């Protein structure tokens, strides 16, 4: 596995039940490639939280994953409403999710802090009315 392995996923916003399919697929790939369960868990959880956000806060989007023996990078891009105040959004407990989302078990305002905790690098680029890109990297130490 000398080269970079690239994976691409489209996240559908209409169907909440399929949210998590992309992260589940990546988890499987990483397992096959023989990464440690610790690394796999970090990537899977960060990606899953981000995937859910794309479904509940944006209109879905695309995910690009790059895997090398040294690191795993996940780039989530959506064309949703954008994030008004990133600093606020990063706080535990901050959420704009509605009642419907809460009934599904999400909207606790824990997603972005979780992603930060599980990854080594995390960058958010966002523009109101245009969309959000969440770029995360997990290093294989």
């Amino acid at each position, binding site marked *: 596995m000398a080269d970079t392995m690239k994976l691409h996923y489209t996240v559908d916003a209409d169907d909440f039940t399929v949210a998590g399919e992309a992260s*589940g697929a990546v988890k499987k790939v990483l397992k096959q490639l023989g990464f440690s369960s610790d690394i796999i868990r970090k990537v899977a959880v960060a990606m899953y939280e981000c995937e859910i956000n794309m479904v509940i806060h944006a209109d879905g989007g695309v995910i690009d994953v790059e895997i090398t023996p040294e690191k795993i990078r996940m780039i989530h891009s959506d064309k949703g409403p954008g994030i008004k105040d990133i600093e606020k959004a990063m706080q535990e407990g901050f959420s704009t999710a509605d009642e419907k989302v809460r009934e*599904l078990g999400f909207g606790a305002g824990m997603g972005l802090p979780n992603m930060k*905790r599980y990854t080594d690098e995390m960058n958010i680029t966002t523009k109101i009315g245009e969309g959000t890109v969440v770029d995360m990297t997990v290093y294989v130490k």
Partner: protein
Amino acid sequence: MKLSEVKEILNAEVVAGEEFLDREVKSAFGSDLMSDVLAFVKDQALLLTGLVNGQVIRTAEMMDIKAIVFVRGKKPTEDIAELAKEYQMVVMTTDYTLYPSCGKLYCAGLVPNEERVD
């Protein structure tokens, strides 16, 4: 604790993974919030929840949770059970609500699971 013991203590009905009741769980976590599960759970944990939908199964899969108890008599639909079977999980339902379910297991020696990932 063996899952067969969990089943007995909670007087639970097994909906998926009957063949894996020999499995051990080392700790447990009770919550209806999936993001809390994603923040707190460690290896080989049992998840107790009152939330019943497919995302519970997917969340569990992300966290390598292999056993779930749905509390207060909530029965998962066929597709949820199918997803759990696909992931080789044990799924049970108990009539007890979340607090007594956790309390009974705690008293029987199943410790909590709150170590946070940093």
